[in-house]
């Protein structure tokens, strides 16, 4: 992180206009990533993770109003014309989505789909793209890659399809891969394989990975740093070990407690966080988690907490943080 971050998101805000009025999906989210870093963006469903990821390269539908700064490799992606964004998508920033079963075109062979990215961004001919596709499939751990090229998506298992998606994502050696719940739709054992592939790629190509997930097991497995989002706000940011060892935000603590753990829950019950993520129309002058938080008091309901910076980059947005990083101890 010496030469400045690869990705530097500042005060990213996304609003949707829907039939039921405005929805504030992302509320001034800020985070940064270095070259080759694996950052996990976690939070439960509906807290703005995926919207954040899509907003980075302008993939949100037209009705979305995006503001803030999206610094990538020294320039602001927000407000770039569609034509320039198209050149960045797939070449500098690549995506891997949640649904491997439906993210491949059913009528095109694997070879053509992988080759399409190469032909588009690297101007390769059909034959060269084919050769490179074989290498890529091999790289993501697909056996008999040359044969797979001629096969259709329905002939592959879910795990294999996700590997193909990853092969397409790394085809142009992007500087950043955004993996949105890449393992959620897969069996646990296949998940491990996919995470291995991501780890290997990072080692071999030096790609940074922005991993979006609600699965803390995945986070512990692969991420170096973690950003926790809640109701559109970033509420805690820390190195992975620090976050697991000493969660500061009550919400983070709740997420960790909700992970099934046979040792801890000997009574057989699962702990959960009561209530659900609020859908907000505007940014309230309060902590958005206050309604579900056991520690909330009047302060939490009337004033918006700022991000407190602690040692080792541990940051938390809470009036009554549970552990060290704050300057204001509860």
């Amino acid at each position: 992180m010496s030469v400045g971050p690869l990705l530097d998101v500042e005060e990213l805000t996304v609003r949707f206009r829907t039939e039921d009025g405005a929805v504030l999906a992302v509320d001034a989210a800020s985070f940064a990533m270095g070259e080759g870093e694996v950052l996990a963006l976690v939070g439960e469903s509906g807290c703005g993770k995926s919207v954040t990821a899509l907003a980075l390269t302008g993939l949100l539908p037209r009705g979305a109003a995006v503001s803030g700064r999206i610094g990538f490799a020294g320039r602001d992606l927000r407000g770039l014309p569609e034509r320039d964004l198209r050149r960045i998508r797939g070449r500098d920033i690549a995506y891997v989505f949640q649904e491997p079963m439906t993210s491949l075109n059913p009528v095109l062979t694997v070879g053509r789909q992988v080759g399409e990215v190469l032909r588009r961004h690297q101007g390769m001919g059909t034959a060269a793209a084919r050769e490179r596709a074989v290498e890529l499939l091999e790289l993501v751990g697909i056996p008999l890659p040359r044969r797979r090229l001629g096969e259709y998506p329905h002939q592959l298992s879910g795990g294999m399809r996700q590997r193909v998606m990853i092969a397409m994502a790394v085809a142009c050696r992007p500087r950043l891969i955004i993996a949105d719940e890449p393992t959620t739709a897969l069996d646990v054992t296949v998940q491990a394989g996919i995470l291995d592939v991501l780890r290997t790629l990072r080692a071999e190509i030096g790609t940074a990975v922005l991993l979006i997930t609600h699965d803390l097991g995945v986070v512990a497995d692969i991420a170096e740093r973690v950003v926790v989002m809640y109701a559109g706000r970033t509420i805690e940011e820390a190195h992975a070990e620090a976050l697991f060892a000493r969660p500061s935000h009550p919400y983070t603590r709740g997420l960790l407690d909700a992970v099934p753990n046979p040792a801890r829950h000997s009574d057989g019950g699962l702990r959960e966080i009561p209530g659900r993520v609020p859908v907000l129309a505007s940014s309230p002058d309060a902590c958005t988690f206050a309604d579900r938080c056991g520690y909330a008091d009047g302060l939490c309901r009337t004033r918006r907490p700022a991000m407190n910076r602690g040692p080792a980059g541990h940051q938390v947005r809470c009036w009554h943080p549970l552990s060290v990083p704050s300057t204001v101890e509860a």
Partner: protein
Amino acid sequence: MSLLELNTVEPPVRETPPGGRRRALRRVLRNPLAAIGLVVVVVAVLAALLANVVAPFPFDRTDFGASLQPPSPAHWFGTDELGRDQFSRVLFGLRASVGVGVMSVALSLTVGVPLGLLAGFYGWLDPLFSRLADTLLAFPFLVLAVGLAAILGPSLATATIAIGVGQIPQVFRVTRGETLRLRGMDYVAAAVAGGAGDGVLLRRHILPNAVNALIVQATVAVPAAILGEAVLSFLGLGLRPPTPSLGGMLSSAESLFRDGPWLVVFPGVSIVLLTLALNLFGDGLRDALDPREARR
């Protein structure tokens, strides 16, 4: 680790990758009605293509010594009032009918598919194109055809154009609907995220996936066009005599029905058989291509 291997066991690699369409065709042939339909269609198309080889007589050779003969070994389908061999005329008539059917559907696809893609993909074009399609749809088919015939003069081309234009709205609607559906698919979103432009999305990701629906639409449209040609020729707006078409033969046989019922029966039965066969095959194809059917 053994669990991991169990889970990632690959389906056996097949020698030839059977494309989705080839598998669908196999599934069609397992449906007996559809298989019969396909056989009849193939026979009819071959007969139409090879009419000048297969037909025992030229379609316009008259023989007044043998006029209005019932079916016989010499004239399988009998002869008309001018002694023309009806079997030969049915074969040539089939050529006209199949030709009109295919060409008019080709015309409606050529115009309807691009417009449907654009309307489905670019929402702001949709109201304009859809209202135009509705307008065209509001014209009764015969009014359109008679109007065109008045301008262009009755001919096979006129009939083809009238039928083709009349079918554009249906093709447009099917394509537009498919485009709207496919635009929301994950793989289209994935292609956008991979940097694909609109042209690539439409050409490589949306159109190929809409083909199934269009194939089915075409198998309905071809028999409709054949019937349309029969109607237009019956009204004297299609082929000019002596060139036969199935509808034209029916038309001229009308007054002779009592003296030579076979003059009505053979072209009539041919039309019914051909359209029925196409519809059966189309139904089977639609079932086989139905995405709700298990894909594996």
